[in-house]
């Protein structure tokens, strides 16, 4: 279609369309078939997996280099090491300084990001197709051959220490960090990736070099390329860029971890805060649970969409908040189930009461209705194709397969698997994996204002914590 302008005559003479029927909503027609992207796979001799997806609509290519080591691989006492290492990757390589590295990326117009979670670290670069080869060479320099210089380390560590100082002022971040600690204690998931001041202060550049050597290696890495490319070319470019990357001996991955018993109710005082930041939840299930699809449906209905029970109750009915949601954070080991909401201070106790009642209700006392189930399933399945529109979206989706060892037909199976979930499944999996008696509640808010209401909740005396106890 080319640009053209068709100015209809305004007003007189223009024919009006017949009035349409507003007595009922139009029914969607049959769904347009959608085929999920085919993934082509090759493994290089050093163990690096190279996966590509052809998605040539726009002359853009998105690369993700995923390493299956994240903050949970931080050695005890070195919380924050994985994230610090990831942060050091783009600080130069070989003779190239940190600034020169970024000048090189900027000359490609590249969009560059690093990301870190409990189970992974990743480097993402999106460029115009004509820069694909140069971008891949830079990614290899960043991931496999970072300079890890002492002076850069000192600067980057100092910036992260400053960042930790600033985070103390952010109630949502304080809540997230302390809540993880309450749920997981010393378990590998018990700290957020940025780590702690004490641990960061104790680290040296040698820690980073050692961690890079054992954790960031080709046999735990996957290079994903999506866009205007063909697989053979990607493999050839990857072999040139990453061929010298030697695999190190395997690191020891901590998989066990004792979970503490947290108090039911905890408060971090934030005097005069206009809102209370709430977290309610407990440790739940790993990503590989056979109940995954039923839990996704259950969460959608409970707190995973605008029309969820929690949001309709706390926002649309009560007006307590700008928004409330729940999530199962799926990871390789059991991740948390968490409800998160920021409510006006005066509504704190009632919001907790309503939240716990909603969580308890969906397990059986107030089972999902046929209408809720149909809506939840429809919301998850009918719009599924839109997660595969851009090269970056597809690369992110494929990264999940690599991270969690999901099968190639995972995307094709998602819609049928979700569609099979029944109301009984929802009650069953929520009963199995969520227990109101085990919920831990954390409030970051004005203690003087909220204390009287909290006392009446029947959750016991609140434990008063400091914003930065760890």
């Amino acid at each position, binding site marked *: *279609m*080319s*640009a*053209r302008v*068709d*100015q209809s005559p*305004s*007003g007189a003479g*223009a024919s*009006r*369309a017949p009035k*349409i029927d*507003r*007595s009922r*909503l139009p029914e*969607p*027609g*049959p769904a*347009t078939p959608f085929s999920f992207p085919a993934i082509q796979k090759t493994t290089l001799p050093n163990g690096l997996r190279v996966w590509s997806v052809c998605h040539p*609509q*726009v002359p*853009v290519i998105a690369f993700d280099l995923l390493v299956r080591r994240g903050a949970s691989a931080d050695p005890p006492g070195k919380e924050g090491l994985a994230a610090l290492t990831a942060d050091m990757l783009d600080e130069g390589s070989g003779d190239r300084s940190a*600034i020169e590295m970024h*000048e090189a990326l*900027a*000359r490609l*117009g*590249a*969009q560059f990001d690093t990301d870190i979670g409990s189970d992974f670290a990743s480097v993402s670069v999106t*460029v*115009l197709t004509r820069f694909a080869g140069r971008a891949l060479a830079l990614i290899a320099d960043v991931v496999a051959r970072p300079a890890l210089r002492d002076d850069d380390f000192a600067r980057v560590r*100092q*910036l992260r220490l*400053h960042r930790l*100082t*600033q985070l103390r*002022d952010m*109630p949502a971040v304080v809540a997230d960090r302390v809540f993880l600690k309450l749920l997981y204690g010393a378990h590998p998931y018990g700290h957020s990736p940025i780590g702690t001041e004490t641990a960061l202060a104790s680290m040296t550049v040698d820690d980073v070099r050692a961690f890079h050597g054992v954790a960031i290696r080709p046999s735990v890495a996957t290079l994903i390329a999506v866009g205007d490319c063909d697989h053979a070319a990607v493999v050839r470019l990857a072999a040139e860029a990453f061929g010298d990357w030697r695999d190190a001996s395997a690191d020891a991955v901590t998989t066990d971890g004792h979970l503490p018993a947290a108090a039911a109710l905890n408060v971090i005082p934030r005097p005069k*805060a*206009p*809102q209370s930041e709430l977290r309610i939840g407990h440790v739940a299930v790993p990503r590989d649970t056979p109940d995954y699809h039923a839990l996704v449906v259950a969460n959608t209905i409970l707190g995973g*969409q*605008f*029309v969820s029970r929690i949001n309709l109750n706390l*926002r*649309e009915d009560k*007006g307590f908040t*700008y928004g409330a949601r729940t999530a199962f954070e799926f990871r390789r080991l059991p991740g948390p189930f968490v409800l998160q909401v*920021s409510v006006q201070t005066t509504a704190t106790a009632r919001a907790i009461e309503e939240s716990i009642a909603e969580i308890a209700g969906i397990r059986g006392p107030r089972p999902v209705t046929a209408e809720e189930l149909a*809506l939840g399933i*429809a*919301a998850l*399945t*009918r*719009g599924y*194709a*839109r997660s595969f*529109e*851009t*090269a970056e979206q597809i690369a992110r989706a494929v990264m999940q397969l690599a991270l969690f060892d999901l099968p190639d037909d995972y995307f094709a199976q998602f819609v049928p698997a979700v569609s099979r979930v029944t109301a009984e499944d929802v009650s069953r999996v929520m009963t199995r994996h969520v227990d109101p008696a085990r919920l831990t509640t954390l409030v970051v808010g004005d203690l003087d204002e909220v204390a009287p209401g909290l006392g009446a909740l029947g959750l016991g005396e609140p434990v008063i914590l400091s914003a930065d106890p760890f």
Partner: protein
Amino acid sequence: MRLSFAKHTLANGLDVLLHEDRTCPIVAVNLWYHVGSKNESPGHTGFAHLFEHLMFEGSEHHDRGYFKPLQGAGATLNGSTNADRTNYWEVIPSNALELALWMESDRMGYLLPALTQAKFSNQRDVVLNERRQNYENRPYGLAPMALLSALFPPDHPYHWTTIGEVADLHAVQLDEVQAFFRRYYHPANASLAIAGDVDAGEALSLARAYFEEIEPGDPVDAVEASAALTTDVRIFFEDRVEVPRLYLAWLTPAMFADGDADLDLGTDLLANGKTSRLYRRLVFDERIATDVSAAQNSREIAGYTQITATAAPGHDLGELERAILEEVARLADEGPTDDEIERGRVQAESQFVFRLQTVGGFGGKSDQLNAYNVFLGDPAYFERDLARYHDVTKSSLQQAIARYLTTPHVTLSIVPRGRVALAAPDSQRAVVS
């Protein structure tokens, strides 16, 4: 590189923009109303945004919430309000285009019969909580209030923030809501873009069927206002923060005006990313700041350029201010390097191509077509917009910096409570809420 489209104006004045992209079985419906907080007046602020919330609460023929039928059809949807415009969008499977048009047209044509005092009170509470969450209970969250009120005079429509003043939100009455709807939410003040997996002819027929019956309202006059800073304004306030942060702001040209693209690239090379001049000096070399950023905030009737930097512990905002102003002056005197201009161009080209990847949502192709149509009356502006960046030269960029960023400006310091000495020197206490 182009963003193709067809434009039709319906008999009631509604612009309809159509763009086909059959690669993914989804369609974006994107509807702009040319109204924002600039159409408010002192004492009545926050209204355009509060109204946006009410648009999701149901209309005459579907008075049961806006989200449910659309999410049930697999849609994702949202809306947003800024100073200049309000937009609403759905991204839906292509089989549900008609549903989205039904819903959007019903709230354009038939909102008021369904609008009750109860909904209004509930959404006012939600907005007050949005304000608490995103501004009042957030470190440095009140900076926009202080900056805008110092940059623009009290009767200028950019003097207040889009979220509005708390007292105004409490004072607003339902009858004002109704009057606001009648004045601004009608076809002649709106632009509808439909982009994605759809036949353009069919989409136009559907748009006509659903929207052409809605009566046009009176044309909305452009808001006109001017602002000038004749002397420097130096202000500070104390906040619940651990480290002080400095904000510098200058009045600059409006969106798409001469100098706008130069300042956009100029602020990039000053403070965006590790290669930028201010990052290198303040964060990398001297280590007196932990972060620095800059942006040319282009708006419809005026722009402002803002530079923001957070002090590293042990350093005060006066030190940051001196270093920043030195670098701005150096850019104004010497201009950028060839390499900086070349990087700026390739980055602009890349960003424009990246923007073509998605049909919907904030910033997708449907949103871009509406932006060009609403602000310029020219949805074909995509290529010329990119050309603006290609046309920036060393000398034009240098001139823009010299002309606009070496003039009187606002210096705002936000300091930890009890640490007033960390503010930039000679600052007056500002009252913000």
